[in-house]
Every structure is written in C-alpha cells, then in structure tokens.
C-alpha cells in the first residue's frame, strides 16, 4: 500500500508531463513552441519547489540560479568564432572554450549549485520575512552583475547563436529528470528531515535534525536543478538578462502558489495549468477561433489574468489547486470500501 502510494506520487507528475509532451508532438510547429515553453517552466517550478516546498521558506532568489544556468550554458555553447560578435570582453578561458549540448547543461547545473551553496552558507540561517527579503537581494545583485559585467557574458546583449537544441524531446526529458530528482529527494531521509522542520521546527530539532544543514542541502540541490532549467531555457530561445529577472520570478512563483506549494504534484500541475492558460491568452491576443467565434483580447491581458488568479488563489485557497497534497486515490478507495 505504501509502495503503491509512493509509485503514484512519482507516476502522476511523470504521466502528466509525458502526456503534455505527446500532445505537443501532435500539434503544428508554431503551437509546439508553447508546449516546449511549458515543459521548461515545469523544470523551473519543480526546481524551486525542491527548496521552497520542502522547507517552507520563501525564496525570491531562485531565478538568479536560473540566470546563472543561462549564462553558463549560453557562454559555453556559443561557437568560438561567434563569441566576439556579441561577447567581446569575455575572459580568455571562456572565449576559447566551446562545449556540446549535454556538457553545457551539466555545467549550468553545477555552476548554479556552487553559487547556491555559496549564497546559502550565510542566508540559510534566516527564516520567514528576512529570508524572503535576503533572497530578493540575491536576485537584485545577480541581475546587476550579469547586466554589467561583460567579462562573463553578453551583458545587455541577447544570447544569439546558442545552438537551439531544446526541442520538445529535450524539454520533456529535462522536465522528467528534474521531477525524478525532486521525487528521489523528498523520499530520501534528507527530504523527510527537511519536511519535518517545515511542519514543526522545534520538534524536528528535538529529534536531532539540523535545520540549517538540511536547508542548505536542499538549497544547493534546488540551485542545481534551477541552473539545469536555465540551460534548457537558453538552448530554447535567444534570451537576455531581462528574461531572467522580476517577470520570470513572478510567473514561476505564481505557478508554484497556484498549484500548491507543498507538493511535487502541485508544482507540476501549477506550471502546466498556468502555462496552458498563458498560451491560450497569448493566442487570444492575436485573435483565437473558439467554438466558431473569434475571441480577441487586448495585448497584455495574460499577466492581468495570471496575477488576478494568483491573488484569488492566495485569498480563497491558500494551499493551492491541489491543496498542497500529492495525488492520491485514498479518499476514493475509502469511499468505495464504505459503500
């Protein structure tokens, strides 16, 4: 019974992501973009979930790990002869190195994890509001440095000529890898210890759990996954520093909150649901055929709807669409047995 529940905990998000990927393979090339985007969003949101969901500590800083991933994978995988065109001031060792797709993704994860570990060493002592503000400060600092320090990347330029290797397959595999890692972590003893500190810090301490160490571990792992997601992102679209700043922070947090912060299932459902809504609205901004009628909404409606939805969910159902629980058939079975 327990094993079955565990299997479902993993199988449900995996099935959902696989389903989305298969659906994406059926539609036209121009619609496929939305599916790839949604899958990349799943990897980012699940990466954030690994820390925020399991620890219950708010972080506005995870998009800085995504940004570090974008920079690492982007700078490393632009062909050497293209680099001077938009990154003329790179350090020599960066301008002389070019690596392939998979190594660049791994490097993105590792560099982001190292950065998260470094940042986490002092910051993981904070909780609640202080943690929220400190991680926000990390986002500001990272953005400021990446924006102006042109020895490590393109500064304000867009990452052009990064090989576009994130197709539907790579986005789906990436999202699945992140989900499996998140699942493995939350079932491990470290994940359980961290969840215990979320539910009752005093009791967790009393049984010998180091809150600081557990949070730091989760922060680094979550940084690795966020960096990986950043790598997937830069291999998908030519982006610049503004793409990995406040707007992305907001939309990914909205996805997590709308889905339900405290479960993997919630993170995946939230990411896919908000992405779907966002894509429909993006289409509607250009005029959408729906049931024989043309639905047309003015440009900019998407963020209005998503932010209103997020505020509504927070007020009416603070634990999110899934209630912050993993998918489970227990209530259903209980009903069946009772009848």
């Amino acid at each position: 019974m327990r094993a079955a529940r565990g299997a479902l905990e993993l199988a449900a998000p995996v099935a959902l992501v696989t389903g989305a990927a298969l659906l994406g393979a059926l539609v036209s090339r121009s619609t496929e973009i939305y599916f790839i985007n949604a899958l990349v969003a799943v990897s980012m949101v699940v990466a954030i979930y690994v820390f925020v969901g399991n620890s219950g500590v708010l972080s506005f800083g995870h998009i800085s790990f995504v940004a570090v991933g974008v920079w690492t994978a982007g700078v490393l995988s632009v062909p050497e002869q293209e680099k001077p065109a938009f990154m003329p001031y790179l350090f020599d060792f960066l301008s002389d190195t070019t690596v392939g797709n998979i190594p660049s993704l791994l490097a993105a994860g590792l560099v982001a994890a190292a950065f998260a570990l470094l940042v986490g060493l002092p910051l993981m002592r904070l909780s609640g509001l202080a943690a929220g503000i400190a991680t926000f400060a990390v986002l500001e600092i990272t953005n400021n440095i990446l924006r102006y320090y042109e020895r490590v990347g393109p500064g304000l330029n867009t990452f052009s000529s990064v090989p576009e290797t994130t197709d539907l397959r790579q986005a789906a595999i990436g999202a699945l890898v992140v989900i499996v890692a998140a699942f493995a972590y939350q079932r491990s003893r470290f994940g359980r210890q961290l969840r215990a500190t979320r539910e009752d810090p005093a009791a967790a301490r009393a049984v010998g759990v180091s809150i600081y160490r557990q949070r730091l571990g989760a922060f680094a792992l979550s940084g690795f996954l966020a960096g990986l997601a950043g790598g997937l992102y830069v291999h998908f679209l030519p982006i610049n520093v503004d793409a990995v700043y406040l707007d992305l922070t907001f939309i990914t947090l909205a996805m997590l909150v709308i889905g339900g912060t405290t479960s993997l299932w919630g993170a995946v459902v939230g990411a896919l649901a908000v992405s779907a809504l966002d894509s429909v609205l993006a289409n509607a901004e250009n005029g959408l055929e729906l049931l024989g009628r043309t639905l047309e909404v003015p440009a900019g409606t998407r963020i209005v709807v998503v932010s209103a939805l997020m505020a509504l969910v927070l007020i009416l159902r603070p634990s999110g669409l899934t209630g912050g629980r993993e998918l489970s058939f227990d209530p259903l079975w209980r009903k069946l047995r009772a009848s």
Partner: protein
Amino acid sequence: MSCLLASGLSDFLGDAVDLQVQVDAIGLGAIFALMAVGIGLVFGVLRLVNFAYGQLIMAGAFALAFASDRGWPVWGGIALCFVVVIVLSLAMERAVFRPLRTQSPAVMLIATFAVAFLLQSIALLWFGPLGKTAASLAELNRPVTIGEVDIRKIAIVSIVTAAVCLGLLMLLLNRTSLGLHMRAAAMDFQTARLVGVRANLVSAAAVLIAGVLAAIVAVLLTVQFPTVTPTFALRETIIVLAGVVVGGMTRLLPATLGGFAIGYVSGLLGGALPTAQSQYLPTFVFGLVILVLLVRPGGLFLRGRAAVERV
C-alpha cells in the same frame, strides 16, 4: 546618525560634491523617506511588506498624466491623483490585506507581489509600454538662485513637504487616540485587540495614511521624472524597501531614516560618480541589505536586538 553618515560621506568624496548636488540628494532622500514611512507604517500595523506600494505611486502618476493630457488645472490633477491612490489603497486593504491578515508574513509578501504585478499589467494594458507625460508641474524643475548656487525648486518643495508630512504624522501618532491605537497595534496586534483596539479601523487607517503619502510622492516624483510608464517608481520602491530593511523595519523612525539615507546616498553617488562606477550601486546596496539582515537583523538605526527568527 544619518547626518553623521552624510557628512562622513561628503568628506570622503571631497570637493567633487557641490552644494547643488547636496540639495538634490537631500530632496531625493526626502521623497524616499516619505515612501519609507508609507511602507513602514503598514508593516508596523499589519506585519505586511507591501511590494505593491510602488504601483500605487504609479497609479497616482498616471492620474496626473491623464489630467495634464486633458488640460485640467494643476489642482484638479492633484485632486484626481489623491482620489485614485486612496481609493486603490483602501480597495487593496479590503480585498487582499484584510482576508490574509491571519496568514504568515511570507504568504502576504507573495500576495502583495501578485497585486503589484496585477496593477502594473493593468497599467500596461491601459496606457501601453511607452506611457504618458505628466507635464503640468514641470515649472518646478526650474532653478532658483540662492546666494551663488542654483537650486531646483522641486528639491526645496520635496524637503518642505516631507518635513511637514512627517511632523503631522508624529502629531497624529503621539497626540490622538487613533495614533495610540495604531502604536498599540504595531506593538502587539492580538493584545491590542483584547484591550479594545478595533483591528479593521487601525489597519484601514494605516493603509489610508500610506496611500496619502503615496499620492504625495507621486506628485513629487512626476516633477522629476515626467514620463510615466507602467514601471514608474518600481526601481525606487525596491531601493526604498532595501533602505527600510537596513534602517530597521520594526520601528517607524529607523525605517524612515533608512529610507532617507539610501535616497540621499544614491542621489549623491548618482550625481557625483561617473556611470562606470555607479552602475554597480545596486550590488552594494543589496549586499548591505544581506549583511544587515545577518549581522544586525533589527536594523542599523535601532538600539538593542530585535527578535528575528533564526535557525
């Protein structure tokens, strides 16, 4: 303490800083101090960090731009600005802050984040990314000559307005029963309710005062930056938030000093340093925020240690 900081800094920068830059910096500091009071007051009573404060100012600025577009008289624009900002603040309090009052500070922080994006995207939808121009008060940008230096009128107006507002607020908080209730609520909301402080009243009053301050800031800021876009006052709010944390957000006076100091310093550095050096200013400011949170969680300008959750 902030004066000490200021004089130390100007010694450090030497003759590069003339009186004109000084006055401009103090003017900016005064505006930031008003914003810090608006954020600090709501935080004090509701324990809520209002990310959406900048968007209130933005809404007020759009009201001013709308009025100057239509050729309304100056007082008409300012009146519209006050009405829009106050109505919006009270609506925000009623619809979002009040239902979430029992939630954790982190949830409320995310909720105001959502409100901020909601207002910003509505502005984007309504006015487009290029925004509008609020020009009716542009006359205040002209300098007046005092002694041998040219000082922009707006700097003087900002300083005087801030001083008057802060004075009135002090009177309100220290001399009226509403002020007493608000201070009680800021100290301990639950206990204050037990002894008869009406929760909805004090929370609405705090938000209302913060709204009035936001409208004043909107008027002052549009003089300096007449182009009103959906991201108007966003940078300033983020910087002020940092200043409030550095100053000490649990008490109003340290928070205000923090806001003033950060406005003054960024005005001074922005005026005195070349771009190549001032572009990393946010890194230093937010590095300082992290340092203060770790080393003096109660804030620089607060005596004693505030209780902050630690692990």
